[in-house]
């Protein structure tokens, strides 16, 4: 006993090897491999974990497989017969190497390998009396391949004496296996891994000198996550590196990606790490704009928004607003402009607040989200109708006199009218994003609240700026003709764009809520028109007409509100469900799964994210996408056209937009077939520009 203790001390001091006892089972021998079950220690102790492992010694050229075998093959499987209460953990798979055979990629091991398993032994082993040996039985199957594959299986029996465990003769095999097993987060310094929707795996390792990373490759734990044999391009950067993987058919961005990454440094030393990459944003940086740039973008976006096709009903209101400045002093004109700007800014702030609050509450919403509600669309249609009727002269608002919207005969009524015009202009203009807006909104929403509000305020300021500048031009009011009958005629004429916009919104409702929704919305329009006629009647007549008119207006108004509540409860299911039938424009409905499939196959894809309420989107479709030359280019380039309809809420589309750093439609993305980098196309499409982009895909690789 003393001698043994002494020997152990010597071992601990590393001075002399202990003549350790061999603990190896029967050996299953074939011309391909010698396989046995071995133990790390030479004895077992109840209540203590015990490490055992399958030892495979393969003949030259033969190999066996990792947990994910790759495109072919199968991993080893263990079936233990253990004493009651004992359990076997998972196999601690050592880092595999890669074998490529033609297009087939395999992950496996050559030569000698140990597949360790930790057994947990209960404190008491019922069938055993004290001091009795422990017998472990394992039925194992494994596949060995060279040019041919042979499944092998065997039963192993290993007996361990009871006693104080000391390292067995096979313990060094376990040490070798441990040294060759990927580090887990627990055994390594903290690092972060993210996977982008395109399959770019980014690793951040604080303190890592990435310039020393010479080579790296990734292997997933599950089949189908990536194309195993696709090249993995390494890009190093400060404190990290990335691998461009090609997503496989089972890749789901939101599920993340688990596996190992094997890194070779400049000295040729190889390290493997286990990782569970979390879903990260697209590789296209968007939300990292510096503040000044964010504000500049927002300002520019707001100004450009004035020119987007989306806002054509608003242009009518703006024209009236400008005309209303006729004959006014500069001060009065500026006051009007100020009221308009205040309306715009207040509405932008309210929208920003609502967006932030809805997102905080977990809603998946994006820019223009309010138009995804048929109730909002119907209410906006009624509002436009009401404004149109006001312009047509059916009734007056603002002080109850003849003050029609924007006419501004009295200072007070005029200012309120201008404020309301600003409010309405923003509400109606928001369905679309303009150039710069995508980046600005996404950046603003990703930033702290104060920056978010600042971004939206800047956008509002940009939106109001042209109007304010006009008003501020000295003598601008004097350049307009003197107030007179022309103003009434202009106002009446401009009522028609309002009616046109109401018709368009009615069409949007038809797509969102079907025929029932159209009936409800049109009935509401009827009630609104009746109520306003009654208001006009009470305004223009005295006495009992006045009371009758007011009462009728009130009744009709209540009726309209009641109608709106029925629309709110109209199930959107009555709307046509997106069908998988080929669409007349040869597009397929967008689903993330379909995109992943096509990307995995390297098929070029054109993505069109659109909505019925987005006029810019519809203009683009008519001007560019529907042109025969574009259809031909799609067919010639074997480009699959995926169309995502955001008319109704669709979390999958919102998520996709956000992944690309956008928050609204339109969005056009071209995935060239063989290059991984998607190209985001302009929000104003022209046939020529689109053809040019499509031609680039056909040329194949990137310039």
């Amino acid at each position, binding site marked *: 006993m003393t001698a043994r203790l002494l020997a152990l001390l010597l071992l601990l001091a590393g001075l002399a090897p202990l003549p350790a006892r061999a603990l190896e089972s029967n050996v299953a021998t074939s011309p391909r491999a010698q396989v046995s079950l071995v133990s790390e220690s030479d004895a077992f102790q109840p209540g203590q974990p015990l490490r055992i492992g399958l030892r495979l010694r393969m003949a030259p050229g033969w190999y066996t497989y990792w947990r994910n075998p790759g495109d072919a*093959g199968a991993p080893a499987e263990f079936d233990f017969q253990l004493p009651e209460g004992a359990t076997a953990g998972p196999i601690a798979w050592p880092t595999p190497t890669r074998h490529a055979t*033609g297009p087939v990629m395999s992950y496996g091991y050559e030569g000698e390998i140990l597949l360790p398993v930790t057994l947990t032994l209960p404190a008491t082993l019922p069938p055993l009396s004290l001091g009795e040996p422990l017998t472990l039985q394992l039925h194992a199957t494994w596949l060995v391949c060279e040019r*041919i594959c042979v*499944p092998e299986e065997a039963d192993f029996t290993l007996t361990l004496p009871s006693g104080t465990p000391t390292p067995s003769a096979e313990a060094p095999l376990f040490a070798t296996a441990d040294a060759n097993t990927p580090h887990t987060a627990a055994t390594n310094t903290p690092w972060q891994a993210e996977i982008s929707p395109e399959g770019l795996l980014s690793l951040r390792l604080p303190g890592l000198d990435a310039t020393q990373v010479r080579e790296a490759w990734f292997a997933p734990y599950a089949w189908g996550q990536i194309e195993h*044999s696709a090249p993995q391009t390494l890009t190093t950067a400060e404190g990290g590196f990335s691998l461009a993987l090609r997503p496989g058919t089972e890749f789901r961005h939101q599920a993340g990606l688990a596996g190992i990454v094997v890194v070779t440094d400049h000295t040729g030393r190889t390290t493997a790490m286990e990782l569970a990459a979390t879903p990260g944003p697209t590789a296209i940086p968007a939300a990292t704009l510096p503040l000044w740039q964010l504000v500049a973008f927002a300002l520019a976006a707001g100004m450009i928004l004035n020119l987007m096709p989306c806002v054509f009903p608003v242009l009518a209101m703006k024209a009236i607003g400008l005309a209303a400045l006729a004959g006014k002093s500069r001060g009065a004109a500026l006051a009007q402009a100020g009221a308009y700007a205040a309306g715009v800014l207040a509405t932008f702030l309210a929208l920003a607040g609502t967006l932030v609050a809805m997102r905080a509450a977990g809603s998946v919403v994006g820019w223009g989200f309010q138009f995804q509600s048929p109730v909002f669309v119907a209410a906006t249609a009624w509002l436009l109708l009401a404004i149109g009727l006001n312009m047509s002269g059916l009734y007056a608002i603002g002080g109850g006199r003849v003050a029609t919207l924007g006419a501004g005969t009295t200072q007070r009524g005029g200012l309120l009218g201008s404020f309301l015009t600003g409010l309405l202009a923003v509400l109606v203009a928001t369905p679309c994003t303009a150039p710069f807006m995508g980046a600005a909104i996404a950046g603003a929403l990703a930033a702290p609240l104060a920056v978010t509000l600042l971004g939206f305020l800047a956008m509002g300021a940009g939106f109001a700026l042209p109007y304010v500048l006009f008003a501020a031009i000295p003598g601008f009011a004097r350049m307009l003709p003197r107030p007179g009958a022309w103003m009434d005629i202009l106002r009446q004429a401009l009522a028609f764009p309002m009616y046109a916009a109401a018709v368009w919104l009615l069409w949007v409702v038809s797509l969102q809520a079907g025929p029932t929704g159209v009936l409800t919305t049109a009935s509401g329009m009827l009630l609104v028109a009746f109520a306003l006629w009654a208001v006009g009647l009470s305004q223009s007549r005295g006495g009992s007409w006045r009371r009758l008119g007011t009462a009728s207006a009130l009744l009709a108004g209540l009726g309209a509100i009641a109608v709106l509540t029925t629309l709110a409860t109209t199930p959107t299911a009555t709307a046509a469900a997106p069908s998988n039938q080929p669409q007349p424009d040869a597009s397929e409905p967008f689903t993330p799964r379909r995109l992943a499939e096509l990307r995995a196959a390297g098929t070029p894809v054109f993505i069109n994210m659109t909505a019925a309420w987005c006029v810019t989107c519809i203009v683009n479709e008519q001007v560019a996408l529907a042109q025969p030359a574009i259809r031909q280019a799609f067919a010639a380039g074997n480009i699959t056209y995926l169309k995502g309809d955001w008319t109704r809420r669709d979390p999958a589309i919102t998520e996709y937009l956000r992944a690309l750093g956008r928050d609204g439609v339109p969005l056009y993305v071209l995935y060239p077939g063989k290059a991984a980098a998607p190209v985001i*196309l302009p929000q104003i499409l022209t046939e020529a520009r689109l053809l040019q982009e499509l031609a680039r895909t056909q040329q194949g690789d990137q310039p």
Partner: protein
Amino acid sequence: MTLRRRHLLALPAMALPATLATPAHANPTIGALAPGFTGTDSNGAAIALAQFAGKPVILEWTNDGCPYVRKWYSSGAMQDLQRQAAAMGAIWLSVISSPPGEQGFAEGPHANELTRTRNAAPAHVLLDPDQKLARLYGAMVTPHIFIVDATGKLAYMGGADSIPSARAEDIPRATPYVRDALTALAAGQPIATQVTRPYGCVVKYRTQA
């Protein structure tokens, strides 16, 4: 303005590192037209995918020495699938892609002998010793199954069933992906599972220099 916008839009494309090179093999895609081919069968006849337009076509990569293939033929399960396909008017093509000197290589007479002794029922056995067809479809293993529907589109690719073992006794316990796909096709219904993990022996690709 136009220039500035283009410049801005060019940024995202540049921000990504230059990435993947051309893959070494084609990837067939579910729902897309299956790659067309003309091959030679075990009787020396030219067989083109196009000649079966209007009928479903099943491609089965095979290698009679592979234990996973043996699992399917010793149990009679692969022959059953072949007869199920024939009964619904589908064309079953067994493909042998092993080159000379490798396991599974067969010339015409031997391939026909295998069909006879195994009581198999493919419409044709295609001989692909230079692996052109295997590369065209990205065949990874034997058995690896591809189903082309009557309109010429790829409708299924993957394993013969769900349990990746070489044990015949696992077949009754597994989800029979190919049988289910054929049943759905015959009934004119969508195929529930269209892509599965293929399992088996590596197709004997000749190592390229």
